[in-house]
């Protein structure tokens, strides 16, 4: 099963390598990973896509939570959510295909963001299904290169995934 997981982490040096190292060290799948600062600049949001059976996903979530710099882990399987991904596609654009490309971009509400005598570079955003449909249709025209961001996701409605402040104990008690 494919899962989109949101990981709120301290926006600190070295955190990304801890998360990446966890996946490689324990042999977990990682299909995509997207990281950037969140609304709170001390926190970064990592959105990652992984797959595995329930037992594996349970371990992924627990192991992520165990990392000291990880503040919160959310599996979007548990939630109603929306997700979007962005893709940049460089396609062959000759006399015959330009018209067709334009029509597709229009239908999928994309954009042409760069043009050369022989190519168009297209930008499309959408959920997984939409991007898949678009790429299937555009493929016969000749895709030269393709770059995707991997999805980011957010809960539907007024639900907000945020850090709640807690306080550790541990003041005072010495090494005795």
């Amino acid at each position, binding site marked *: 099963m494919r899962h989109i997981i949101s990981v709120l982490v301290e926006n600190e040096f*070295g955190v990304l390598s*801890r998360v990446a190292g966890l996946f490689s060290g324990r042999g977990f799948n990682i299909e995509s990973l997207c990281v950037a600062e969140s609304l709170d600049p001390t926190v970064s949001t990592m959105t990652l896509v992984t797959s595995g059976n329930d037992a594996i996903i349970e*371990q992924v979530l627990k192991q992520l939570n165990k990392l000291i710099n990880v503040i919160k882990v959310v599996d979007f399987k548990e939630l109603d959510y929306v997700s979007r991904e962005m893709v940049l596609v460089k396609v062959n654009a000759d006399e015959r295909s330009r018209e067709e490309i334009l029509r597709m971009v229009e239908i999928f509400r994309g954009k042409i963001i760069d043009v050369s005598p022989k190519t168009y570079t297209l930008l499309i955003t959408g959920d997984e299904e939409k991007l898949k449909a678009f790429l299937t249709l555009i493929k016969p025209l000749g895709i030269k290169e393709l770059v995707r961001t991997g999805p980011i996701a957010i809960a539907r409605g007024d639900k907000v995934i945020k850090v709640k402040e807690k306080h*550790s104990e*541990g003041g005072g008690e010495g090494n005795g």
Partner: protein
Amino acid sequence: MKKTGAQIFVECLKMEGVDTIFCYPGGATLNITDVLSGSDIQQIVVRHEQGAVHASDGYARASGRVGVSLVTSGPGATNTVTGIATAYMDSIPLVIFTCQVNTMLIGNDAFQEADIVGITRPCTKHSYLVRDGKDLARMIKEAFYIARSGRPGPVLVDIPKDITSNLYEFKYPEKVNIRSYQPTYVGHIGQIKRAMKEIAASKKPVLYTGGGIISSGASAELVRLAEVLSIPVVNTLMGLGGFPGNHRLFLGMLGMHGTYAANMAITSSDLIIAVGARFDDRATGKVDEFAPHAKIIHVDIDPTSISKNIKVDIPIVGDSKNVLQKMIHLAEQGGPEFKDYHASIGDWIKETEQWKNDYPLTYVRNGTLKPQYVIERIYELTKGKAIITTEVGQNQMWTAQFFKFLKPRTLLSSGGLGTMGFGFPAAIGAQVAYPKSLVIDIAGDGSIQMNIQELGTAVQFRLPVKVVILNNAHLGMVRQWQELFYEKRYTWTCLECTPDFVKLADAYGAAGYVIEREDDVDTVLKEAFRNGMPTLIDVKVNPEESVYPMVPAGAPLREMLLV
């Protein structure tokens, strides 16, 4: 007032109550060593950085306090890796300070630079690179807190040299506040009640306990619960000492070299109550056939341990001591659901006692010097009142089988990583923590050569550690596998050119003895144990002896090869 990073470092250690540091110098430690030398923190200077970390680990395992080591950058730091990984696998609270090249040089392949935070990331609980001296005190405070709280483990702090000489405002943080780290100590009461219902309904319960009992200080609670409900107890290697080895309800260690009674009890049980144990493959054997008739209750402070190797019916996240206390409370109330339980438990106890009587741990006495005999004698001569460390291999397994550990923190052994060379420096660390105790490393002739250089440390700091080398002239445990599974092709495992240990001891200024016959065992051991010196005892044991019972790797626990 402003202080140098080195001064701040030493102040922080004092505030943490650190009395001893295991260390080795280099260019990058100079500022710190200079300040440390004027402090009253005891500095045990070792001969190899691996020794420093294992010694701090032995100190921590024996005392329950955080073990502290300090080494230089580059090779000093990389030499600590095996020690750190050993502590990580066994959840031992350590803080390892490595020094680093100057901040400006980091990333430039500078002289003696190593990305030690990167190298140790998978084998530390957490780590810090101090990039700004104003964070130093906070990071040290957090490192100690993280190391000892929750599921304990090693934390590394990497300090660039320029930070140790620059001046910073020093204020020791009163409190630790890590919003992303909140270990769960208190077990969920609803889950605990469910667990008690299962226990009441069970006919063949077994307590399967590990190192978590020791790290949470829950031995007394374990004994109490076992006695109130008459539940037989099996231990993992890491759990030995957590339940008295001479208790009538004790069935011994389970697993690959476990007792017949322990492995049969697991196989026949209808309810396993796992506390502070993690279903390691050496303990479970073939995991699909582990406890085939049992439901499983699992108490552990680390949620990742639960349902990792084995599917659990009742998970309880929490500190062993906390959870056991609540279980005892409920068991002592003994509601009506326990009526049938107490009536039927006697049959189960009888069944387990039958196994103990029919197939006790044993070995053939045939006039040759048997390693098991030596361990039995060490137990008798010390009456179990010693801190025992082990190396890895047959020596470790025989110790686990034939020495009865009566109290927690009396067996210090590398369980998870199985690190040859651990036992001797760990014994040094334990001796530092308990200068008056008898500390004995039960070693193999192979393992002892992995950190033999620490004899210098023991002699220099007058640490009268005893090393009993069960010298079988082989890498015995590997030889045993070759005997059983590779048609006796003893490739690489005959140890040649082993030094004369008595001469070696003498060369270091330690005491050395040889034992070649059963008759000499008691006399020599008695003398060695009271000579007040670091001591090597070379015991020439029968090289053909193997460890039994043995469950071949990948087989279920009931398939034991017996003597």
